[in-house]
């Protein structure tokens, strides 16, 4: 046994696209031609010599083409270093790791997505997977919230979702931008208020709905409440949680939620299974 599970595979950035002032989308060449990931999984990304960070795979397996996408927010050592990179630069990858969204549980159902902020990054993988096999699902509802318009991610795709007849997409921002700078989301029809304000207006068939949500820690409690209020059964709600992670393989202990390791047992959890864990939400 000579290979370390902590030694990353090297690969190159195919393209780099700034999404907002803070978030950039990196298209990465899959190290072995294909990453073989499932929606909801993440990779440990190395900026060699700087460190590693867990990042959700934002592209869907259905659109992989030997590449995958990472949507990264600039917050610290590794993410800053990534933001300074250009196409052709080398990064390290470990993974994909973690539990994915169980796509078979969504098939044939109405699906409800409720991403908040950067939470769209992991959900986008699932959303596009669903849209690429649109016929296999009933209704597709997307309730997407951000702090302000300039922080809306993937505006091209959001515009498409807004356009499509077979997608019910609603947007909300906590408040309008304070500056006038142009932003792709400027034109969108957009509600003002936190994400939960979108729920009352939608009509759903709870028993036939499977929901997925991801966002900042404080968002879960409120979104879950709305979903439960709508009558969606607990075991039909999936969420993706963030924790500090150093290894990604269930050992370093940082991501523990009581006896669970978020990196292995999660990051995608079924609400019915996780709700008994006091440290989870």
């Amino acid at each position, binding site marked *: 046994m000579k290979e370390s599970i902590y030694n990353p595979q090297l690969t190159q950035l195919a393209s780099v696209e700034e999404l907002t002032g803070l978030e950039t989308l990196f298209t990465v060449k899959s190290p072995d031609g294909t990453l073989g990931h499932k929606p909801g999984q993440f990779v440990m990304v190395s900026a060699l*010599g*700087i460190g590693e960070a867990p990042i959700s795979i934002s592209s869907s397996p259905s659109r992989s083409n030997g590449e995958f996408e990472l949507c990264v927010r600039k917050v610290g*050592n590794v993410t*800053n*270093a990534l933001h300074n990179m250009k196409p052709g630069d080398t990064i390290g990858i470990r993974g994909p790791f973690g539990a994915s969204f169980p796509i078979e549980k969504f098939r044939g159902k109405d699906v409800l997505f409720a991403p908040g902020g950067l939470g769209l990054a992991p959900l986008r993988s699932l959303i596009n997977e669903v849209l690429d096999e649109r016929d296999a699902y009933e209704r597709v509802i997307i309730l997407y919230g951000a702090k302000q318009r300039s922080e809306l991610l993937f505006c091209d795709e959001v515009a498409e979702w807004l356009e499509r007849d077979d997608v019910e997409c609603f947007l909300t921002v906590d408040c309008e931008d304070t500056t006038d700078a142009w932003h792709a989301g400027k034109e969108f029809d957009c509600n003002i208020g936190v994400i939960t304000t979108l729920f009352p207006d939608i009509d759903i068939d709870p028993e036939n709905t499977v929901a997925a949500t991801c966002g900042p820690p404080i968002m879960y409690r409120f979104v879950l409440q709305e979903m439960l209020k709508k009558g969606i059964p607990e075991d039909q709600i999936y969420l993706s949680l963030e924790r500090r992670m150093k290894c990604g393989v269930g050992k370093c202990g940082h991501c523990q939620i009581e006896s669970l390791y978020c990196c292995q047992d999660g990051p995608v959890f079924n609400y019915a299974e996780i709700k008994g864990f006091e440290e989870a939400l």
Partner: protein
Amino acid sequence: MTSTNNKVKVAFFDFASCEGCQLTIIDALQTHLDLLEMVEIVQFREAMTEKGEDYQIAFVEGSCTRECDEERLFKIRKQADLVVALGACAHTGGINALKNIQPSLQDVREYVYADKADWYETYPTRPISAVIDVNAFIPGCPIDRGEFVKVVKNVLLGKRPGIPDYPVCVECKLKENVCLLLEGKPCLGPVIRAGCDAICPTYGEGCEGCRGLIPNPNENAMKDVLDEAGLSIEEIMARFTMFNAYNAHQIQERETAEERQ
């Protein structure tokens, strides 16, 4: 942050201090001569004659103890992209601040200079962060050689400086030292910031607190522990103030001000 020769220009400045931190940097060169491949030192009074005024990183050693120091500090702040407080004197006020907790500053001056006291300008010691904005600090009296090198590397890489937020006990345990507190000897390790590789406990002397408190110290629990080790409240305070008198004095001042209200 690079100059024409692609090296970052750094300068060293000293204020009231023993200059042990600058010496520690000279010592760091013993094992890291390649440091000079990465940075260009444009000013280092203790080691070189040249004085360049064009620099991006300023390492400032020593405390501010008089008005004329402030002006020098403002000038440094204006020039440098990054100001790093070097060592306890600059970071916490260090030993110099012991004069702040003497009964009166005038008495301090007269004790040393008698009737000539007025010749010597001085005011209560301040860490440099009390005068100008500081981007990073390297704690310790003196600084730790390895930590200095690490901070320089991190800054060159665009990372945070990487000064630990956890206490000395962590490093002490990893070195498998016999715990002094458990042997009934005073040690501030549980509430003082690590990064020195627990050098004092390793050499049999309890931590004296030169690196300053960790961000969330459990001070009450620490007092109980020192009390248990047989220290009187005066001795506990002496331990706490040796390198942290500026802080202790500030707290005291605030408390008396509150009482007065």
